[in-house]
């Protein structure tokens, strides 16, 4: 089975053809925003990082930024820096040039300030856009697809309708040779035994327990009860009582395949099939990590409704109940709530999600894209000064 994608120089496949204006440090965020505004058709992000990172946080930030900028949905990237930061445009350029990514570099201090940097940046972004517009979609086997799965603003119905339906779609993609990322480590706590039974080998099983133990150790060190954060107040209002209950419903998104690998935040999977990414549960942080890890489409289930999107990758939203679908229709692509009314089954909605993934990968625009949702966040490991 094929979808229509953009084949990049590296061989990686894009589902979108964006020109990204990316500040490598917060000090360049406003200038990047001004350039993007001056060149319609480009996308940009803001973040609060790029300087002061120490030890493994530095590597973590570079991996996340380089993964995001070198992503096959990005036809070309303008890297904007200030000039004196830790993570300069040159640092990211060195990483993404290995995979043949098209980039330009701009430094505000070297250009002599905001106005001159925006003027130069505008002409560089226009050049990148002109080149990007030459790219054409071509048929690509769906085994080239990596989808990210996420759930946010969950309720108890998420685990009964939307998540198991997404699980059906995940199993279909894995059966076709594709890759599915299951993420949000805190929401694996209490469901490790279910995942461990499906681990491909002892090393993977050990890693599953290691990543959840690390989160639990953090909570214990803080001396707090995780409830209130996980489940969140909205989750609890929606009927989720404990983290264990939330997790058991959340992991259904990944389907029932063997778990091939456990990877770090923003790392690219080297195995196909179902892969766990060790990531915070924070929705935008998790999406950004999966995108940096090469996800070309994200499927996001929600019970209480969320508008979240991503700057360079389409996010398909699936509602768990018809009430939220009716209230937030403009934000939702597929309603799994019909399963409760008996109008549909988990399997039939799962097949619909699978078809939607293929169509969206081939260019169909999602609700989040129509509305301009482009949330972006990288988490800090707390190793910054």
């Amino acid at each position, binding site marked *: 089975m094929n979808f229509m994608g953009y084949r990049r120089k590296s061989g990686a496949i894009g589902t979108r053809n964006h020109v990204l204006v990316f500040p490598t440090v917060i000090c360049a965020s406003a200038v990047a925003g001004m350039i993007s505004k001056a060149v319609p058709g480009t996308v940009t992000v803001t973040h609060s990082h790029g300087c002061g990172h120490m030890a493994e946080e530095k590597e973590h930030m570079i991996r996340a930024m380089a993964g995001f900028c070198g992503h096959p949905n990005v036809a070309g990237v303008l890297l904007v820096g200030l000039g004196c930061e830790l993570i300069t445009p040159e640092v990211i350029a060195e990483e993404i040039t290995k995979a043949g990514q098209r980039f330009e570099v701009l430094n505000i201090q070297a250009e002599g300030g905001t106005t001159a940097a925006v003027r130069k940046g505008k002409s560089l972004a226009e050049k990148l856009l002109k080149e990007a517009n030459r790219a054409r979609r071509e048929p690509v086997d769906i085994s080239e697809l990596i989808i990210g799965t996420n759930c946010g603003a969950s*309720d*108890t*119905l998420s*685990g*009964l309708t939307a998540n198991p339906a997404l699980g059906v779609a995940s199993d279909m993609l894995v059966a076709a040779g594709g890759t599915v990322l299951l993420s949000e480590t*805190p929401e694996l*706590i*209490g*469901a490790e*035994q*279910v995942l461990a039974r499906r681990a491909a080998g002892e090393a993977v099983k050990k890693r599953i327990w290691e990543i959840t133990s690390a*989160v*639990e150790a953090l*909570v*214990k*060190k*803080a*001396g*707090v*009860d*995780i*409830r209130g954060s*996980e489940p969140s107040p909205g989750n*609890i209002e*929606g*009927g989720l*009582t*404990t*983290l*264990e*209950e939330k997790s*058991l*419903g959340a992991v259904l998104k990944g389907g029932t395949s063997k778990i091939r690998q456990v990877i770090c935040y923003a790392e690219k999977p080297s195995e196909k099939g179902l892969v766990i990414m060790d990531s915070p549960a924070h929705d935008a942080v998790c999406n950004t990590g999966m995108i940096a890890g090469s996800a070309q489409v994200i499927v996001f289930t929600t*019970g209480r409704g969320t508008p979240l999107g991503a700057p360079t990758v389409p996010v398909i939203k699936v509602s768990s*109940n018809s*009430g939220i679908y009716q209230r937030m229709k403009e934000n939702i692509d597929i309603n799994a709530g019909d399963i*409760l*009314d*008996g109008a549909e089954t988990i399997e039939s909605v799962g097949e619909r999600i699978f078809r939607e993934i293929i169509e969206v990968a081939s260019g169909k625009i999602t609700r989040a894209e129509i509305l301009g949702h482009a949330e972006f966040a990288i988490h800090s490991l707390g190793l910054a000064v």
Partner: protein
Amino acid sequence: MSVAALVLNIKDNVATAVRPLNHGDGIDVAVGDKVVNVVLLQAIPFGHKFALRDIENGGQIFKYGEKIGQATVRIKKGEHVHIHNVEGLRGRGDIP
């Protein structure tokens, strides 16, 4: 009338209401190939859980066939099961 509540695994001792249910309602719940009748002792909001049988103080709560927490008081069949009578045991840095 559409289904009132769902049970996911025969091990489960709670059901999830898939529409708002009233105090005093007699609900037939499918548990595997059997049907269990539960008279609700409280109103159950949409998406919330109620007990399928009596659960002792300290007893495990099962959903998806897995443990989701522990009863902090005795819970009667038909009672609302939520944070007021169940606690999670994971991520508890508040317990020494």
